[in-house]
């Protein structure tokens, strides 16, 4: 408050100046007043004298002493005259006496009567009046000054106090947190402060509003900044700036994080260190060019990370002019993944080994080719080529040579086909050629013959001469189909047909198509049958205990109660189901069906002791969730586990021995009885048989039916003995007459099954049969 710039200071100065001025003025005034008063007094006296001169002169002239005295007395009283001396030639009149010489003024005038000087009048008068007046004046002035001082003092104090209020107000304003407060809390009795407060409040509100908007903006900016950073991070984009004139370089922080670099890249040359050696020269040259021409360029280059990983970047480098200064701005996008993606894309459509199209690539191009064919009204032929026994070639010569062979074979095919044709490898040893503008089979014959004539010569792979043979199946667009997969499937079927018939190639014909159509139809019908309850049913062929001559079990066999064709045996539909995935559905259908039946049989007096055997397909056995599924069925249906048996064929069991043993163990753990069906047709070793967890051996019926043949008898005998040694039961399947039965009895099999006893029958028939058979 007390600085030279403060209002109070200025007010103090003003007061001081005012008082000093007043003081000086008064001082000067007093002096002037004294002189003026004195002068006035003198003038007045002079005036009176002049006015009285004539009278006095006349009185003096004629010596009217008493009158003279009277006038002099009058004058003395009026003007505080101490002494008057009138001097003429003849006489001197004296009035009064000077008591004190102090403050005495003197005045002398000539005395004239009728314009003739008759003497002089001298007056000695006191300026006591003047002094008295001055004293009064000074006193008043002093009182005035004191009052003025007092008033000014009070005023100053008041102003000071009120200015302090401003100070206090200012301190409150100083402490305002504009982020929180929109109004000042300050009561003041003064309008000025109130006005300022209102203005500040208004300003605060505006600031607060502005601050809020700024905050929102900042949040948005941060959000967008974060998103940008995230976007950069996600898209792996780095932006950098190179001020080459001042050798300043800046790059986003994310660059360091991405590459795991601790050191700050604040230098262009440090950044260059990360550019791959192969691309460094080109990069530097590009930068130089951009600087010189102040233009924009894009380059692809590699960056080496500190851990020597290579990253591919696509950089856009631009020179910008800012305030007569040129700066290089770069944006580098990590296209490593894109490159990989392109590689993947290439791989997605191409066969990496042969460089030809893969299945997807072929399909893709096929679509295009068909559009062209339609426009030009041309036909396409899809040729499916399968190298015969390629697996053996691999096993014989090794996979490396096998690959080489495939490469050479694909080159051969490329040479034979035209530019308008497409070549692809869709499987290990399977190729597809799509021939454009093929009119008929004749064209096919030409091409096939060409191929076949070439492959008559061996392929020389690392000095090895390798001969190959092929099968081919051909389908036509649009005659046989318009869809790539359909044509491929038809051509593949044609291949199978060619294999069956021992031909090199087969063109799809109507017969095959019909067969396919039939297969499709059957499969659809099976699908429908699976949805219905009583179309797919079980028939049961009894198994007889030789010793007790009782029916102890049955083999459940599927039958199809076809709505049109009547009762169909598995032969009529199972092969079709096996070609599709329906066999799995059928298996599960049968399993559940059996579970259901067994649950019902539990309550049946006759059937409760009958064991049911169910055949299991390879596909179902090898399914991953098969055990889980069985567990689920066993939980759902409360059957007597000892009345349930699964039959698996021997050939299945030796397919993957370890896996088979594992699955069978799991089945045994569930409490399920296992029978090895069609035993003798596979190539099971004794060691394997010993390891397999099974309960029953079912000797294949070919051995049983032809048991008359001594060799077969021996085999059956041997199998039976092995089974006995292993403490397993033996079932002789296919007993068709008594002779066979007797032989089987002699051999010592435990159970028999065959037409001799009964054909597969319905449940109702079975019950009746058992009743009759067991009670005979």
């Amino acid at each position, binding site marked *: 408050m007390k600085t030279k710039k403060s209002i109070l200071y200025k007010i103090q100065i003003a007061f001081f100046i005012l008082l000093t001025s007043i003081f000086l003025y008064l001082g000067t005034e007093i002096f002037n007043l004294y002189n003026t008063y004195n002068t006035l007094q003198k003038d007045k006296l002079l005036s009176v004298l002049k006015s009285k001169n004539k009278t006095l002169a006349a009185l003096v002239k*004629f010596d009217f002493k008493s009158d003279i005295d009277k006038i002099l007395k009058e004058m003395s009283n009026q003007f505080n005259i101490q002494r008057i001396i009138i001097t003429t030639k003849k006489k001197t009149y004296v009035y009064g006496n000077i008591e004190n010489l102090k403050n005495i003024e003197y005045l002398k005038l000539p005395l004239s009567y009728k314009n003739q000087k008759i003497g002089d009048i001298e007056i000695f008068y006191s300026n006591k009046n003047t002094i008295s007046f001055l004293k009064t004046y000074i006193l008043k002035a002093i009182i005035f000054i004191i009052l003025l001082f007092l008033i000014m003092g009070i005023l100053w104090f008041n102003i000071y106090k009120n200015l302090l209020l401003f100070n206090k107000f200012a301190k409150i304003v100083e402490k305002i947190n504009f982020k929180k407060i929109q109004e000042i809390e300050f009561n003041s009795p003064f309008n000025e402060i109130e006005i300022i407060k209102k203005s500040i409040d208004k300003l605060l509100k505006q600031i607060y509003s502005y601050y809020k908007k700024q905050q929102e903006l900042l949040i948005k900016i941060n959000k967008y900044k974060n998103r940008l950073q995230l976007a950069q991070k996600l898209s792996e984009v780095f932006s950098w700036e190179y001020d080459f004139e001042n050798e300043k370089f800046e790059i986003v922080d994310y660059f360091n994080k991405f590459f795991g670099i601790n050191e700050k890249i604040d230098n262009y040359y440090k950044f260059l260190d990360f550019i791959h050696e192969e691309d460094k020269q080109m990069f530097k040259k590009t930068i130089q060019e951009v600087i010189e021409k102040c233009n924009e360029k894009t380059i692809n280059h590699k960056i080496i990370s500190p851990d020597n990983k290579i990253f591919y970047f696509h950089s856009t480098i631009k020179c910008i002019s800012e305030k007569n200064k040129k700066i290089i701005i770069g944006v580098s996008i990590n296209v490593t993944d894109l490159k990989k993606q392109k590689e993947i894309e290439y791989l997605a459509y191409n066969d990496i080994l042969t460089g030809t199209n893969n299945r997807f690539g072929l399909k893709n191009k096929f679509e295009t080719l068909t559009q062209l064919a339609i426009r030009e009204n041309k036909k396409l032929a899809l040729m499916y080529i399968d190298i015969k026994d390629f697996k053996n070639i691999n096993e014989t010569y090794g996979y490396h040579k096998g690959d080489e062979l495939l490469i050479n074979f694909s080159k051969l095919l490329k040479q034979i086909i035209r530019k308008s044709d497409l070549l692809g490898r869709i499987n290990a040893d399977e190729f597809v050629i799509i021939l454009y503008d093929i009119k008929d089979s004749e064209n096919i014959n030409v091409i096939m013959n060409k191929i076949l004539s070439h492959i008559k010569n061996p392929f020389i792979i690392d000095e090895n001469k390798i001969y190959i043979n092929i099968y081919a199946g051909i389908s036509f667009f649009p005659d046989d189909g318009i869809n790539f997969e359909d044509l491929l499937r038809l051509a593949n079927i044609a291949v199978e047909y060619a294999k069956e018939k021992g031909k090199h190639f087969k063109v799809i014909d109507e017969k095959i198509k019909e067969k396919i159509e039939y297969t499709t139809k059957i499969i659809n019908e099976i699908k429908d049958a699976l949805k219905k309850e009583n179309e797919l049913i079980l028939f049961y062929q009894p198994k007889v205990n030789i010793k007790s001559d009782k029916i102890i079990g049955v083999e459940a066999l599927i039958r199809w109660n076809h709505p049109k064709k009547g009762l169909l045996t598995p032969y009529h539909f199972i092969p079709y189901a096996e070609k599709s995935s329906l066999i799995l559905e059928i298996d599960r259908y049968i399993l559940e069906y059996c579970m259901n039946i067994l649950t019902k049989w539990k309550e049946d007096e006759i059937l409760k002791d009958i064991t049911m055997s169910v055949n299991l397909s390879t596909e179902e056995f090898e399914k991953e969730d098969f055990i889980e599924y069985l567990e689920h069925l066993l939980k759902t249906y409360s059957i007597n586990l000892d009345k349930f048996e699964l039959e698996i064929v021997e050939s299945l069991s030796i397919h993957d021995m370890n896996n088979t043993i594992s699955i069978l163990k799991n089945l045994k753990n569930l409490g399920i009885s296992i029978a090895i069906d069609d035993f003798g047709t596979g190539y099971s070793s004794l060691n394997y048989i010993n390891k397999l967890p099974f309960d029953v051996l079912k000797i294949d019926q070919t051995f049983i039916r032809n048991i008359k043949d001594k060799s077969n008898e021996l085999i059956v005998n041997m199998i039976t003995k092995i089974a006995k040694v292993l403490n397993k039961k033996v079932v002789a399947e296919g007993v068709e007459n008594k002779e066979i039965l007797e032989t089987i009895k002699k051999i010592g099999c435990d159970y028999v099954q065959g037409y001799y006893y009964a054909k597969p029958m319905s449940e109702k028939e079975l019950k009746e049969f058992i009743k009759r058979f067991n009670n005979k």
Partner: protein
Amino acid sequence: MIKKLLITFLLFYILNAYNIDDIIKYESQLYPKIIDLITSSNKKIVIIYNQDTLKYAEKLKKLIYYKNVVLISENQINNSNMQNYKAVIFTFKNLQKKLINKLAEHKVLIFNIYPDEITNSMFTLYIGVKIKPYINVSLIKKANININPILLTIGEIYEN
């Protein structure tokens, strides 16, 4: 000296040219004022006449606003009680010195209606460019009367 002669001549001329009736009018107004200036007593103002000037005396008396104004003849003046007079106004000329002195002794103001009778009066009328009191200072002084200095300033002083 020449000035005085001229003035005297002019006076005589003017005096001779004036009308006494008119003068009495002026004097009837002036003389009371002079009397008031000098004294404030309640004494009488006496107008003295002779056989020839009675009419002037009566006229004067009529014109003077004072109440206490009496007329007495010339013959009576010597025997009157002059102590009771504050002023006498003679209406004739050739006044006796003795009378004048006696009046002066009693401090009676002596006036005359005839301007040229100043030698035997304290006051007459001076007729010149202006009409003003004619004052015989020496006679006044001899009577030891305190003259109001104003008269000395406004009047004409007779110097013999």
